[in-house]
């Protein structure tokens, strides 16, 4: 093919991802150091001879990391290897304590999986080529500039040895939007598995390979031959750290590559760095020659038999399945089911509430009221999951008619979140107990007596008049009456 012959619309986008995910384990992958990264942690304190790569120190495999990897394999419908086996990847870099990384090479723990994504209602399976375990390097802090202009660079080994899983997809993405959907879905699945914490800095790092191929070489099902792929020059985009970032960086690359080709220039085969703040990718180094990592077996780690782990290790119900079940079991609409399964914690919370009350009422309260108020306060469900009892009490108060929906939402729920008070205390303090009938009857009579003009308007057929009277009654009852009931009582009284 000649680059010149193709205009922008004759080009199709091909993307494959390498996703590095930090696994949430108690200790590092090859030593007993904690993986808990405190915000204000002193550099180089969460280290030991092993993760510092001191002479003579030896790695010992943390089986918890292997367990997490097996869970990922199950969730991605992948083949799980019968035993683990590690290799050394040799290269020099200042964040790498031993100047080699212990990783997996010819026998990854997981291979050949899929993850379904949906973009604008269209569902597609993205193939997972492999997913393997490795150790995270330390982190570099460039002082006085960026990576190429800094005066000096500091190394922090606290992160060194954090278990990483590298998930490599097939070149199955046909748009940046799909990569974003995939990454969001992957995060969701990993969170459901309880092995991933998206709030941790550096928990998700993405490299993307992207190239343009002639659209005519793409089959109806999106299939592209190896030959077509081999002919296209691709760039590897590094330094992407979120699903939004992936979409932006790759959208930029699509435009850049298409522009180049439509102007008759070839796309350089190279590594590019995503500069988030400037919203562009910049060339890092030309990738003319493949790096030679001189892989060979890590003799310090004997293979670990995990043939029966796939059977033994259970994984929780995954988001897609749970969404489907919520729709069937609780009769929820698609939107509520989706909201209520957005994280495992929300879904668990909902099911606890739905068990005790009408699932619809529970859905309204969890999906709309609670999540809405939490979102407004920049809080997470995990911030309140220990207050499940209080929350169910609030729904109970509404369900039994002890307080009005309006008060429950506007006073009690907000008070619970803002002041941390228990619902009954707020109800007592604010005098929100639902007005009893006598009180409302009295208030209705008073409102009619005190507002002859409105009564006259009502009889003259002005619809607004009754609303004014409802407002008067609500005021008298301190908002504790049910506006619908009041409306009905007023009409009955006025029509007598």
């Amino acid at each position: 093919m000649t680059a010149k012959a193709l205009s922008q619309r004759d080009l199709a986008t091909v993307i494959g991802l390498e996703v590095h995910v930090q696994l949430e384990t108690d200790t590092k992958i090859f030593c007993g150091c904690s993986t808990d990264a405190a915000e204000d942690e002193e550099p180089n304190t969460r280290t030991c001879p092993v993760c510092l790569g001191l002479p003579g120190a030896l790695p010992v495999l943390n089986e918890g990391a292997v367990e997490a990897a097996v869970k990922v394999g199950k969730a991605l419908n992948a083949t799980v290897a019968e035993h683990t086996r590690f290799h050394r990847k040799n290269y020099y870099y200042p964040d790498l304590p031993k100047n080699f990384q212990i990783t997996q090479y010819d026998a990854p723990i997981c291979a050949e999986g899929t993850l379904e994504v949906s973009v604008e209602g269209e569902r597609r399976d993205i193939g997972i080529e492999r997913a393997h375990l490795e150790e995270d390097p330390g982190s570099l802090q460039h002082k006085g500039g960026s990576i190429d202009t800094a005066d000096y660079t500091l190394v922090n080994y606290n992160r060194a040895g954090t278990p990483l899983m590298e998930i490599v997809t097939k070149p199955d993405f046909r748009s940046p939007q799909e990569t974003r959907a995939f990454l969001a879905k992957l995060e969701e699945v990993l969170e459901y598995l309880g092995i991933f914490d998206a709030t941790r800095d550096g928990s998700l790092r993405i490299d993307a390979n992207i190239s343009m191929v002639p659209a005519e070489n793409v089959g109806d099902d999106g299939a592209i031959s190896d030959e077509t792929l081999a002919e296209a020059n691709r760039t590897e985009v590094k330094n992407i750290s979120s699903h939004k970032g992936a979409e932006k960086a790759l959208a930029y690359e699509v435009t850049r590559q298409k522009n180049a080709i439509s102007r008759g220039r070839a796309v350089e085969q190279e590594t590019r760095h995503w500069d988030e703040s400037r919203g562009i990718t910049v060339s890092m180094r030309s990738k003319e020659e493949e790096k030679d990592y001189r892989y060979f077996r890590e003799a310090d780690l004997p293979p670990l038999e995990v043939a029966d782990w796939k059977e033994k290790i259970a994984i929780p119900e995954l988001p897609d399945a749970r969404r489907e079940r919520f729709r069937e079991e609780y009769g929820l609409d698609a939107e509520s089911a989706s909201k209520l399964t957005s994280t495992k914690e929300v879904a668990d919370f909902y099911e606890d509430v739905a068990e005790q009350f009408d699932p619809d009422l529970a859905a309204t309260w969890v999906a709309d009221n609670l999540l809405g108020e939490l979102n407004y306060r920049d809080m997470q469900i995990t911030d309140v999951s220990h207050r499940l009892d209080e929350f169910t009490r609030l729904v109970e108060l509404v369900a039994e008619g002890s307080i009005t929906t309006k008060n429950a939402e506007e006073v009690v729920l907000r008070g619970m979140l803002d002041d941390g008070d228990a619902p009954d205390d707020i109800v007592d303090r604010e005098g929100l107990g639902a007005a009893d009938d006598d009180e409302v009857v009295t208030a209705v009579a008073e409102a009619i007596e005190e507002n002859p003009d409105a009564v006259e308007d009502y009889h003259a057929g002005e619809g607004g008049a009754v609303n004014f009277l409802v407002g008067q009654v609500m005021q008298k009852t301190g908002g504790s009456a049910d506006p619908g009931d009041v409306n009905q009582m007023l009409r009955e009284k006025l029509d007598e």
Partner: protein
Amino acid sequence: MSLNIFVTEETVAGDDDGPLAGKTVAVKDNISTEGVRTTCGSAMLEEYVPPYDATVVERLKASGATIVGKTNMDEFGMGGTTETSAFGPTKNPVDESRVPGGSSGGSAAAVAAGEADLALGTDTGGSVRNPAAFCGVVGIKPTYGLVSRYGLVAYANSLEQVGPIGSTVEDAAALLDVISGADERDATTRFDQSAEMDAHPAEGSDYAAAADGDVDGLTVGVITDLLEGADDRVVETFEAAVSDLRAQGADVVDVSLESLEHAVQAYYVIAMSEASSNLARYDGVRYGLSTGKEGNWNDVYADTREEGFGAEVKRRILLGTYALSAGYHDKYYKKAQDARAWIKQDFDEAFAEADVLATPTMPVLPPELGESLSDPLQLYLMDANTVPVNLANLPAISVPAGEADGLPVGLQLIGPKFGEETMIRAASAVEN
């Protein structure tokens, strides 16, 4: 005149009592000692003071032994004469004009010279047995996985073990009793994965007690392939010792292991490949020589390594890097692994015919100082009899077989995997 046995002389007292109470032990300078510098015989680590003890050092201390110092060695274990040390060569106490062997030359010399009752060496391709033979003492290379390597600064990690040195088989065996055993910090000492073994082999073993000199009925297989290239004086001494074992009731048979002709090549490819990776960390950033130079980190690494490593270490790193490189990996590294598998298989077959196998430990008598250093290939060939044992992960012992021209000759006995007790029993009969 000083024999230059120690890199650092420092006394570290052990616990008040224990099986080695009252004994002094010299420790090879590639075994980490908390608070005592551990140089590996290299300028690169001249100032490196480990913040932790190797497992074997912890066990030494707990056994009541007193550590008397860190012994000289070939740089990072790369050599068989202790002449590649950045701290100068050690002299052989038997004949000061000769090398003590290596790489654990300081450890063997310490025992031979009476500077310590016992010593720890390390053996990657013969580095305990070679100096034991040249200095006329006993040295044991345990089965891979019998002794923890945690804290042993790696040269070639799939091949090496820490091994004891003593003046008698029983002494060395008693030290093996102390240092052997599973260690949760060295995954290669853990046998919970293995179907054939429910406990670590050191459990329930008494190596010192095995040194009872009783070889009656034991079959000793002489590996004829390893006699062919050896010095006549060595072969003569060796054969006399074997005859003596026969006289004590042992059956002596000849065995041949065809694969052994590839052992030296396979050993050096594997050892150098692993070394190129194991020594990559010495870049001057956190420890190791810091040249104080500025500029691109890659250049600083190169300067540091250029200055910090000696010629033999550089040679092995370069050859190992080459052997692992794309395009050469299959030709060298993979082929060497195939040879290793073949050698293991040949040993398995040989142990169907014999309880222990015997060879001269070294095919030559101890060279003069400076004699062999200029010819690396000559040096590598000196390892022909010892490296097969490391490739096959087997245990072996070198025990004095007698003298030739007033110089010690060592007899090597090789045992089956974790067959240390049988091997020690046979070796103690050589002393009779």
